[in-house]
């Protein structure tokens, strides 16, 4: 698998997702359960905002000194007898891994879950070299057996599949004869994979955090597969995105706490391991240990306005609250990194040519920003992407004309006012019972999935009501003046008639409020 998981157009992918009722049900209930668990875990801990600020500060400090910490990490891994390879590109990274395996004349590879190995297309390169690669994370194993179906969530990769589909995959590919009970399916996988662990020559893991002063790799898991990958094969290759590093175990501990709570609502996952090459005198663990540090576009991100995206600790909390992810599912993003963080980093790693639609796959409600444990301003970065896409002239001609027209219209009070006056009669033929029921392109698209109230007559509108409303005392003119003064003074108390703008109110919610206002008038 590469970064790109689907070559079809964005529109086709989203249609596919929206049309998949099972997937939407599964994503919806997974989101509900994961976000409740996250919230409970954060609330139980208390002081969550301070924890987030601490996490953000640690990530930012590390990124600001990344060259130093990576150098320190490499020195310490080598001091412990491991080898370090710095890979500028994905080809260098997967090429090195292939070389290590070929040098050992090895064929049997077991692997624990790692997003960066997907990014560097490692499985593909190793399969070409004749290796048998086994994904040992249960979700990833299911996907592999289903002919490498792409993951749809960074923490729960097989979220889009139901138990019956999984039973069928196991029955077809592995002659499984049991039922669809998750426990039976998992026990079966345990048995099959236990053999694979025991006979594997090479173990490949990802890296949640590299611990620089120790020269060790930190893995955070629940199944125990990552630990077996690092215990049994005589050679281990750990692959890390270059930004995934912390100064010491003390900072690792803070980030692991944020990660576990944000990802799955656990205080700590079952297995948190800090590992390196086997030490002198110890019995198991890798006799040969390689750490592959991958850039693959990250240094460009570090240099630019999206640096904060590199703070990401891959918890997936932003996916679990995203209303767009909920409806279109992970596959629609066409990237191994879906959801809000995927919409931010995929265009950075894969370019706007392939991914210019992703920053628009957001309602900009900001729920992602609010849950991010390391305070990445996700929705602001999506706006930044949109600005870049527009200023680079990557939007279609129709979009540009529409936006130009809207700009003219909205910046001219005269034009705006007269349109409001005429809006009712102009939309009369398009409306029935106070709702618009047909219209040109963009309106058709809107009313296909939700209501659009017909504009009201001017005398029934809010402005008219506001002018003529009953007042406790004093003249209309006085209030008018008072309001204006208040507005200039920045004191909005007297003019606050609706919800505060900003990210307290989602776009959907705001538009539904506007809709209600129209109905009532």
């Amino acid at each position, binding site marked *: 698998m590469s970064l790109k998981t689907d070559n079809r157009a964005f529109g086709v992918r989203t249609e596919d997702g929206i049309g998949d009722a099972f997937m939407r049900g599964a994503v919806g209930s997974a989101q509900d359960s994961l976000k409740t668990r996250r919230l409970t875990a954060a609330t139980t801990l208390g002081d969550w905002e301070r924890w987030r600020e601490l996490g953000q500060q640690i990530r930012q400090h590390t990124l600001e000194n990344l060259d130093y910490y990576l150098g320190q990490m490499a020195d310490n891994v080598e001091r412990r007898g491991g080898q370090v390879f710095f890979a500028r590109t994905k080809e260098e990274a997967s090429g090195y891994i292939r*070389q290590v395996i070929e040098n050992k004349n090895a064929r049997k590879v077991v692997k624990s879950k790692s997003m960066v190995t997907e990014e560097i297309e490692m499985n593909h390169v190793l399969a070409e070299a004749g290796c048998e690669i086994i994904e040992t994370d249960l979700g990833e194993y299911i996907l592999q057996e289903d002919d490498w179906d792409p993951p749809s969530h960074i923490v729960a990769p*097989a979220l889009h599949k139901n*138990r019956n589909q999984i039973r069928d995959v196991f029955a077809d590919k592995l002659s499984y004869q049991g039922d669809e009970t998750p426990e039976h399916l998992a026990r079966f996988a345990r048995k099959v994979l236990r053999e694979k662990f025991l006979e594997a020559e090479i173990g490949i893991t990802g890296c949640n955090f590299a611990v620089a002063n120790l020269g060790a790799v930190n893995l955070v898991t629940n199944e125990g597969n990552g630990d077996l990958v690092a215990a049994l094969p005589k050679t281990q290759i750990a692959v890390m995105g270059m930004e995934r590093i912390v*100064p010491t175990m003390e900072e690792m501990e803070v980030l*692991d706490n944020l990660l576990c709570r944000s990802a799955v609502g656990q205080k700590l996952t079952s297995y948190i391991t800090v590992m390196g090459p086997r030490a002198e005198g110890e019995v198991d663990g890798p006799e040969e240990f390689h750490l592959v540090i991958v850039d693959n576009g990250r240094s460009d991100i570090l240099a630019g306005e999206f640096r904060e995206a590199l703070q990401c600790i891959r918890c997936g909390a932003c996916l679990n609250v995203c209303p767009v992810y909920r409806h279109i599912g992970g596959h629609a993003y066409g990237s191994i990194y879906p959801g809000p963080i995927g919409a931010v980093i995929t265009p950075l790693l894969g370019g706007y040519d392939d991914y210019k639609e992703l920053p628009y796959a957001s309602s900009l409600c900001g729920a992602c920003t609010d849950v991010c444990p390391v305070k990445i301003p996700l929705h602001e970065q999506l706006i930044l992407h949109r600005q870049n896409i527009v200023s680079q002239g990557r939007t279609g001609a129709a979009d540009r004309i529409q936006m130009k027209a809207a700009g003219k219209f909205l910046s001219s009070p005269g034009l705006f006012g007269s349109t409001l006056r005429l809006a009712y009669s102009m939309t009369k033929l398009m409306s029935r019972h106070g709702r618009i029921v047909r219209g040109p392109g963009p309106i058709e698209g809107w009313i296909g999935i939700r209501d659009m109230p017909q504009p009201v007559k001017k005398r029934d509108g809010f402005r008219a009501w506001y002018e003529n409303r009953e007042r406790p005392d004093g003249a209309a003119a006085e209030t008018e003046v008072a309001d204006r003064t208040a507005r200039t003074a920045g004191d909005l108390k007297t003019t606050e008639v609706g919800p505060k703008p900003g990210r307290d109110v989602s776009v959907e919610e705001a538009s539904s409020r506007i809709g209600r206002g129209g109905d009532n008038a």
Partner: protein
Amino acid sequence: MTTSFSQPDKRNPAGSGGSNRDAFLSRVAESLGRPRRTDPVQRPAWKHTVHLDTLADRTTEQLVEVLKEQCTFIHTQVIESTPALLQRTLDDLIAGFGGGPVIRSGDPRFAEYGLNFPGGSVWSPDASREDNVRRAEAANVALVFADYALAESGTVVLESRPDQGRALHFLPAHYIGVIQRDRIVPRSTQAAAALNRRHEAGEALGSCINLISGPSNSADIEMQLVVGVHGPLRATYVLI
């Protein structure tokens, strides 16, 4: 494949310390808009101490209660015993799990408490890697002593040593961790700080540090929790 990788050394493809390290790190420094930083970087004063403060004021007795409560959430049974009763407690547990084979670490505390498991085996550097792994794979029960226990998360912390391998914690079906009350600390903060202090004082830590919180589990199928995936199917802590 790029030029920097076109002539790999067959024995050590990374070359001496990775031939592309300097170019890579210089590019990172360039992205940060400054020269390479090689002098030791001091960690800043972190703006919050929430990790240090959480549960810091609890007594050992209170921490035991926190630990016990947390274990009810992570499918882990906690049994309170005493040094005098420990052998009996462990024997009963093993019998309850259907008996042996038992494999234990070579921790000296087994001898200190006079523990014996006839017919059981010990993870040992005197046996081969294959032999140790084979015995762990065949074992029904693993027995270990925790170096630290974390009350908040219901965790035992263990370091790899010649007489305590990595696979010992993962291959057997049942996992029993003995926790001495005075090894209980509030949370992961204290264990991480202690380990880091030891490392910075020049002590060689084990090549693998495990923080284990209950049995292995997965929710990869329809988000339904399955306890017992690749690692142990059950975990039990014995408090003494």
